[in-house]
């Protein structure tokens, strides 16, 4: 939401300027518009429902895990998401000169912090916990 309001700001300094100025403004604004559009991509309904029902949770290693034995349909969706996550972590880790595990672990810290009350996450002892309004139990290395 905060991102959407941000795109308005860069266009104002160019108001009332030359065509070149406006083109430059457009060039600046376009990537800002494109990024939030990608962010609005929805979760797979099967995944969203399973997450809400506490059948899947966020693990410490940055991937999704099964809290209860999954159906074949859910397993297919979660495996696909975890493969996509790994590919993404791998790309980003390379750009940051870090290992996939380091990038994935850092993401896991953030993803556990971002869980909403009722959702499941993995505690440092490996057990599944239900997120409450309080801060989640996280690894001491998480920020």
């Amino acid at each position, binding site marked *: 939401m905060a991102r959407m309001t941000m795109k308005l700001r860069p266009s104002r300094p160019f108001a009332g300027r030359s065509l070149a100025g406006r083109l430059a403004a457009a060039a600046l604004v376009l990537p800002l518009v494109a990024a939030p559009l990608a962010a609005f991509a929805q979760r797979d309904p099967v995944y969203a429902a399973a997450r809400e029902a506490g059948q899947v949770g966020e693990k410490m290693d940055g991937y999704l895990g099964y809290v209860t034995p999954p159906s074949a349909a859910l397993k297919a969706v979660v495996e696909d998401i975890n493969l996509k996550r790994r590919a993404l972590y791998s790309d980003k880790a390379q750009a940051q000169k870090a290992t996939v595990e380091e990038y994935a672990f850092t993401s896991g810290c953030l993803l556990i912090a971002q869980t909403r009350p009722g959702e499941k996450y993995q505690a440092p002892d490996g057990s599944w916990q239900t997120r409450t309004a309080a801060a989640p139990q996280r690894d*001491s290395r998480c920020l």
Partner: protein
Amino acid sequence: MRYGMNEGWGAARTGGLVLLAAGALALGGCISVKAPDKPIVIELNINIKQEVVYRLAGDASQTIDKNKDIF
């Protein structure tokens, strides 16, 4: 009386043996103290990891925000 004498010597010998055993135990204790070098290495690993997490957190946060369909 003889028995008493013998018992006296026996006690002295046993005392010597106990001292020897105590000395051996003390030496054994000294050797076992040398072991904990490994925990220091583990602590270093944790520190390095924490630095990496600190360095990557900003980028990882953006990555999560931009790929909400898989997070």
